[in-house]
């Protein structure tokens, strides 16, 4: 009796140890992508050349894992790094990178209003690129045209928004990044 009790406790401990929960909440229109949210869910996603790429948290006893991050320095710059994995293909991943420079107080105020502030990639202070990985090299391809919209939600300490752009690398491969969305916990410096 004691032995079976011990086994049950051991089994429970193992289940607890390896317990992890998929934090992916699908979009109601395109369930391949995460839902657009503004509550700091630490998730992002986009259709890249018509394939779904996502980053979302995995909840486990070791914490919440999400590979994307946002940085800001001295309130005048913002850096976005979204490490996106192709759904159902764990070895296919890309990084979507954005850098916003020379931000002003007006920009931050506009980021709090409505659906946020749109930053065009035609602006020289706004850089966007897609970084692809292969065994030979990591290749960054700058965005040709498109935008990133950023909404700052101070109440939930979240930075959310949408993005979309096109890019073409030196060998002529074209990237179409569509229906991009992100929502991460963000602490303004």
């Amino acid at each position, binding site marked *: 009796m004691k032995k079976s009790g011990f086994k049950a406790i051991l089994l429970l401990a193992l289940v607890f140890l390896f317990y992890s929960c998929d934090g992916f909440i*699908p979009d*109601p*229109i395109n369930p*391949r992508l995460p*839902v*657009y949210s503004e509550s700091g869910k630490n998730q992002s996603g986009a259709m890249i050349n018509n394939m779904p790429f996502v980053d979302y948290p995995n909840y486990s006893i070791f914490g919440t894992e999400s590979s994307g991050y946002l940085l800001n320095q001295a309130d005048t710059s913002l850096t976005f790094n979204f490490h996106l994995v192709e759904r159902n293909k764990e070895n296919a991943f890309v990084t979507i990178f954005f850098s916003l420079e020379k931000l002003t107080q007006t920009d931050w105020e506009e980021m709090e209003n409505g659906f946020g502030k749109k930053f065009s990639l035609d602006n020289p202070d706004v850089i966007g690129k897609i970084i692809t990985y292969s065994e030979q090299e990591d290749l960054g391809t700058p965005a040709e045209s498109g*935008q990133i919209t950023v909404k700052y939600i101070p109440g939930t300490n979240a930075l959310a928004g949408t993005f*979309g752009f096109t890019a073409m690398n030196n060998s002529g491969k074209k990237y179409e990044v569509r*229906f991009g969305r992100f929502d991460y916990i963000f602490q303004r410096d």
Partner: protein
Amino acid sequence: MRYKFIVVTFFVFFIQIPEGFAQVGMMFGTNYSNVRHDGLLEKTQGQMSLHLGANIEVVPIKGIPNLSLRTDLILVQKGYTPRLDGSRYRVNLEYGSFAPMVKYAIIEGFSIHSGIEFNRFMGSNVGEDVTFRKNEKAVFFGVDLFNSKRLSFYTRASFGLTPVLDYYDIDPIEGIQGRISDLYTTTIMLGLQLNIHHEKIRF
């Protein structure tokens, strides 16, 4: 507020009947559901799910025994299944339903009914709480067979009158353009009802 008013009004109406023939039943069955929309989704197909509920039926006018009023309280799962790149993604929408209706027995053992569903959104496997509207209204029409037996059969078709989705209109490149309200449910229910006959209810 309006939802509460309708519920209270209906129960007050029942209380007005001092004593009468009432039938209480338990109902369960399967339902096929899908959504109608304005081109928002690419390809969708319907999905099968379940419902479970209870109802009470009274004959309010003694001179017209064929005419009755019935109210269903049902837990029902509606939804739709988008088909994208050859894969299916099931979207479940759970509702608690309050459905008052008028029922008329054409012949013994064959009745028709019609009414309005007031559905309260309870949860979904997609989106956030704010993605779907809290309330949905739908009109329905149905048929009951063998209603005088202990076990009867019913089928019902309901058509959403109000949209269930309240979400963002996201352009592929330009991002959010505004908000959209769309997706109207269509549900066909098939089920069995366990009747408790000739219950006298004193309110």
